[in-house]
């Protein structure tokens, strides 16, 4: 990989489209800088207040869409509060749709305030914890996905090379890689376990 072009993309044009309009790039930057680091708190909140865990990844996605849409009009002042308010509203909407009396969601205003207070310190990450986390994430991957991502990220093999080495086709390789990338994202952004780590 070309080191220079790597830096360039990291600094001047982190995302496609970013270089074109400052508006897009400002919202992208804000989203990445202010919202993504709060994902662990968001997930904790959702898990506490919603019974069905399999809904939660979709909720997270919906919340991010709402946040991003709002931020396009104006960047919210307090990312943490805004995120939690959005999450709360979404849970209430979902509860209504599901015709559930939203006892938990509605009763949790105090929780919100508490959560908003602790968001600062929860921006974790003496990054060393990420290693532990990554290891856990890799361990949980299905073996083939784990093998594929290690070949890609550690050994720098291309899809074609990975396919040959694993004796599968490239479509399967890309599916394994995508699954691994999603799982790693969940761990790196989302899991709060490192906050609770006992010294």
């Amino acid at each position, binding site marked *: *990989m070309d*080191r*220079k072009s790597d*830096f*360039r993309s*990291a*600094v001047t044009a*982190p*995302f*496609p*489209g970013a270089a074109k309009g400052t508006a897009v790039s400002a919202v*992208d930057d804000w*989203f*990445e800088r202010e919202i*993504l680091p709060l994902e662990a708190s968001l997930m904790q909140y959702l898990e506490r207040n919603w019974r069905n*865990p*399999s809904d939660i*990844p979709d909720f997270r*996605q919906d919340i*991010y*869409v709402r*946040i*991003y*849409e709002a931020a396009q009009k104006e960047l919210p002042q307090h990312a943490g509060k805004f995120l939690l308010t959005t999450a709360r509203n979404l849970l209430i909407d979902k509860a209504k749709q599901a015709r559930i009396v939203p006892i938990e969601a509605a009763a949790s205003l105090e929780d919100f305030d508490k959560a908003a207070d602790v968001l*600062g*310190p929860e921006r974790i*990450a*003496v*990054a*060393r914890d*990420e*290693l*532990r986390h*990554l*290891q856990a994430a*890799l361990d*949980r991957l299905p073996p083939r996905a784990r093998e594929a991502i*290690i070949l*890609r*990220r*550690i*050994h*720098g*093999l*291309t*899809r074609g090379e990975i396919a040959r080495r694993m004796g599968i086709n490239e479509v399967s390789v*890309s*599916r394994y*890689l*995508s*699954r691994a*990338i*999603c*799982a*790693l*994202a969940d761990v*790196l*952004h989302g*899991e709060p376990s490192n*906050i609770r780590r006992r010294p």
Partner: protein
Amino acid sequence: MSRWSDETAMPSIDMRAADYVERRDSGNWTDKDEAELEGWLAENIAHRVSFLRLNSSWRRTERLAALRPPEDEEEVPRGPSSGGHYLKIAAVFGLLLGVGGFATVYLTTPRTETYSTPVGGREILTLKDGSRIELNTNTSVRVALSGKERAVTVEKGEVYFKVHHDASRPFVVKAQGHRVVDLGTEFSLRVERHDVKVALFDGRVRFDPDTQTNAKPKVMIPGEVLTASVDRVSVEKEPLQDLLASLAWRRGMLQFHNTTLAAAAAEFNRYNQTKIVLDDPKAGTETINGMLPINDLAEFAHVAKSLFGLRAENHGDEIVLTR
């Protein structure tokens, strides 16, 4: 987590976004691919947020490489096609996978941890108390956290601190035998050879010089820049605005204010493997103003050309600016 054990549980938007993230970071990504991706992102905000999220964590798996303890480098097996770049990643994953029993040693070592960035790197560490430690290019720090004290030793480079003050657990920064003790504050510290430079932006710190200097401890106020060499300590007052400009690196930029071209080139050279060489002594004394992206050597060459008529010759790892 069981979420990923079931293929159907993963939204297909994420799968597609992950595919783009991975392909975009591989060798064979074309303009046509980029155009296709832009179209897909523009289609739907759900696509965009998914891409942003996955791209960010994908980059973080790479950035972890910068945080490995430098002394581990030699212990790491090389992958088949690994250049230096991948070697570092291998270091991280090698640790993860317990190669040579390293992971155990390293994760149970009590509380002192080394973080470093390569040339051009930047890293933000956030402590649980909310304090921030931002490492600039080519920097190495040791962080030791105990119940009584938060100690950071800057071995080389430049670091910005925003400290959550806690009188019962002081935050102490050490460099070259000097100590900076936080009294609730925001400051940066840079080590250059034997000199240590501390700039205070907000709050107060106490600077305890190395005993060899025979200087007294000094409580700094915002706007002051203290320079400590082996044998003396001096303090200057700088306009806060200029001080803040010196922190542009935190945004990936370099800010110049009546800076000579020679000094600007030296700044760039702190961040980039490819070095700028000024082959025209007279041009070196010309001054520039403004802001440039830290890694944009092409833009710097362009500035030198349009302002001072210098020609840029590319010699691989050097860009020579000449008349």
